[in-house]
Every structure is written in C-alpha cells, then in structure tokens.
C-alpha cells in the first residue's frame, strides 16, 4: 500500500495544465513539418507556416498556443494499491486546475449551467475527471485541455449492427466533411467503436491520446485508419477549411465489445493545437 497526499496532486495538475497549453508535442510538430512539404495549396502552406511559428512563439513568450485553453479534461489511472490521503481527491484535482489556469494566464471557459445563467465560474472548474483503477501503486494523471470549436463538431451515432465497416467509415468521413473548417483543421480524429452509448464517446476521446506517429496495434484497424485518413485528406477541406490536401494529421480508432443489436460509433475531433500532458506520481 502506497500513500499519496492530495497536496502532491495539486502542483502536478497545475503544471500539466500550464505545460499542455504552452508547449506543443514533437509528434504534432512532425506532422506540421510533413504537411508543409506535401500540402498542395499555397494558402494552406502559408497557414501551416503560421501554425508552426505560433508553436515557437507560445513557448518563448510563455503564452497559451490558443486563447481557447479549453475545458480541463483529466484522466487519472489510480493504482489499486494507492491510498489517497489528506483530503478530497476531486477537490485536489480542481484546485490544481484553478491554480494552473490562474497562474498560467489561461482563459476561463466554464459557465455555471448550460442553458439559463451561463455565468462564468471564473476559475475554469469544475474539471471533467475520469478515473480508472489499474494494478500498481502509482497515480498517472493526463490533462487534456479541449477547446470548444473542435468539440462542437464531434458526433455519435448508434448504427444498425448490420451497417458494418462501410457504415462506420462513411459516418466518420461525413463527420469530418460536415465539420469543414470549423474545428480548425488540420484535425486529429478520434474514433470510438463499440461498447455502448457513453463508452463509445469516451473511447473516441481516449483515442486522441495515442501518439500521432504510432499505428493502431491491430493490423486490420491500422489499415482502416490509413484508408480513412486518405479519404479524409481527399475531401479538399485543407488547413482552416480554405482548401487543400491536409485536412487531418491522423486518425485513431479504439474499439470494445458491444451488444448484439448495436454498433455505436463516436467521433471526437481535435484541432491542430493538439494538447495533452501526462505525469506519474510515485
């Protein structure tokens, strides 16, 4: 049994919020560089150049890459031999978010209720927290600042079970086509297949966490991803939707068993400011 005090969690979450918003990961940078070489549209190439320049400036000026520093989506893998002490776990995560968004000069984008008041909570809490119990005695925390523009273009459909692979592929491509320039392409497409209604959505979000240069471990799904990425990049949407051959940098599929009657498919889109940071507390 390992004890982890909530006081250890707060500064870790704070730092992850700030770092995720200031620094773009190398896998995204690599995709932008590849697209700079392959993009057919001159305007598209200019936009990719601006995006790359923005990555450099954000780090050097210590400013968030995008003003939309998102909802703080937080995945925590809790080792089953960990005992969390010293206070409330959820409050500690939210305190880390509060400190990170205040001290990192990040934008606060949470409103109190979705319909009537829509008053800004002022500290970007509550965070959206997902916990999973895993073997071991560590706490693995991943912060995903998720902007509203790309999230708004996400979709879920309960397909008829016999619609099969073609139904899945067409739904994913249509989702990106309909989104057009709104989710800030080039995008990353997370796809959740199977499970049930809510599990497919969560799988789609988790799919976004796979490194962009990693292939799906299953050769069949790896092939489907390659085919879908080619189809998406033939849509012509291009950087920012102004036309071009780079609409998506990557597509990542996660699947789970599902009900005999169902074929849930969820598509979660992320923008080119593809942000996530992970730390492990031991």
């Amino acid at each position: 049994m390992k004890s982890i005090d909530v006081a250890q969690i707060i500064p870790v979450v704070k730092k992850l919020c700030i770092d995720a918003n200031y620094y773009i990961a190398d896998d995204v940078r690599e995709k932008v560089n590849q697209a700079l070489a392959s993009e057919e549209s001159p305007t598209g190439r200019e936009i990719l150049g601006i995006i790359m320049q923005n990555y450099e400036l954000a780090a050097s000026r210590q400013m968030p890459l995008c003003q939309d520093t998102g909802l703080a989506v937080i995945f925590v893998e809790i080792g089953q031999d960990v005992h969390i002490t010293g206070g409330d776990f959820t409050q500690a995560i939210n305190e880390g978010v509060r400190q990170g968004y205040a001290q990192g000069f990040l934008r606060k984008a949470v409103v109190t209720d979705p319909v009537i008041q829509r008053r800004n909570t002022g500290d970007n809490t509550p965070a959206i927290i997902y916990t999973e119990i895993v073997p071991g005695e560590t706490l693995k925390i991943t912060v995903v600042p998720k902007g509203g523009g790309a999230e708004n273009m996400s979709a879920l459909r309960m397909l008829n079970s016999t619609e099969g692979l073609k139904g899945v592929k067409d739904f994913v491509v249509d989702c990106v086509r309909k989104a057009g320039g709104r989710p800030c392409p080039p995008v990353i497409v997370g796809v959740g297949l199977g499970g049930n209604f809510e599990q497919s959505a969560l799988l789609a979000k988790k799919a976004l966490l796979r490194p962009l240069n990693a292939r799906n471990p299953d050769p069949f799904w790896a092939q489907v991803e390659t085919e879908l990425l080619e189809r998406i990049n033939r849509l012509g949407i291009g950087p920012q939707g102004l036309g071009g051959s780079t609409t998506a940098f990557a597509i990542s599929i996660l699947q789970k068993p599902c009900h005999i009657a169902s074929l849930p498919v969820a598509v979660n889109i992320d923008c080119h400011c593809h942000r996530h940071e992970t730390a492990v507390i031991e």
Partner: protein
Amino acid sequence: MSVTHHLTTPIETADLDNLRIGDKVMLTGKIYTARDAAHQRLITLLENGQSLPFDPKGAVIYYAGPAPARPGRPIGSVGPTSSYRMDKFTPPLLAAGLKAVIGKGERGPDVIDALVANRAAYFVAVGGAAVIAAQSVKAARVIAFEELGPEAIYEMEVENFPVFVAIDLQGNDLFRQGVARYRRE
C-alpha cells in the same frame, strides 16, 4: 496570385472594392472583440433602438475572447473563434454599418447575402495561432459587458494584424472555391 493589402480602420467601402478572396490584409487601427454572449446583447440594443458601445460605421468586429494578459502586456493569446455561431446576429450588425468581420470557418448563405448587400467583407485569421494574433495588439481595454469575462467587448488597437479575405464584395467564398479546387473524392 494573392496580393497583400494594408487597411486602416474605420474602413470605407472603397477600401474593400479591389480585395479578392485569398488576398492577405494587414489591418491597423481599432477593432472590437465580440463572441456569442456579446452578440446577443448587441442585437438586443439594436432592437431596442439603443446605441452600441462603439460606433458601428466602418467598424470591424473580431470574433474572439482573449486569454488574460500577463502583467506589462496589452493582451493574452487572442485567436479567432468559429464564426458560424454569429451567423444569425451578423446581418443586422452589417446593416448598422460594420464593414468587416473577422473569425474562422464557413459562413451561411444569409451572411454572404448580407455582406454583398451591405458591401462588407469577411476576413479569417488562423484559428489556433493565438500568440501571433496577440503580437499585433498594441493596446486593449474592455468597453462593455465586463461581467462576461473573456466574452466582454474589448477595444483593441492593432497594428498589421494579418488576416485573409474569405468572402469578398462580390460574394465569392474562399471556403467553397478552395475546397472545390482541392477535392479529389
């Protein structure tokens, strides 16, 4: 071949006549931020016959809500937000005198018609390139709806703010034409 133009606000119709989709514009002068909640309030003011917090004649609205400024800097990161959410509010503001709006992403047919009818343009800034946008902001202050936080209306003094012409005075739409050109389905 795209051309770079330099424009200063307030904008006159004549300034926009020779702009074509795909051209670049370096914008200088005062512009006003407004997103969803501020737009709702602006429309209510117009409907009640009240005056807006800024003079709409020749004005430019930027669909944006900035991140907080670090001490000693005029503003935090301030890239564009998706324009389609402002579509239903845009025609009356164009009728009130706006000459350009800046955002990101496609506009609906009603906005394109209203742009042509009012001889105004739609510019796009690069979504996500929010530090680059902030670099052109020399001064900023909240002039209305402070209680909305990042959704308040900021008057920003910009210098060579880089944008692209996405819909011009002829109603040409760079989104439609650009995608048609590179589509290989």
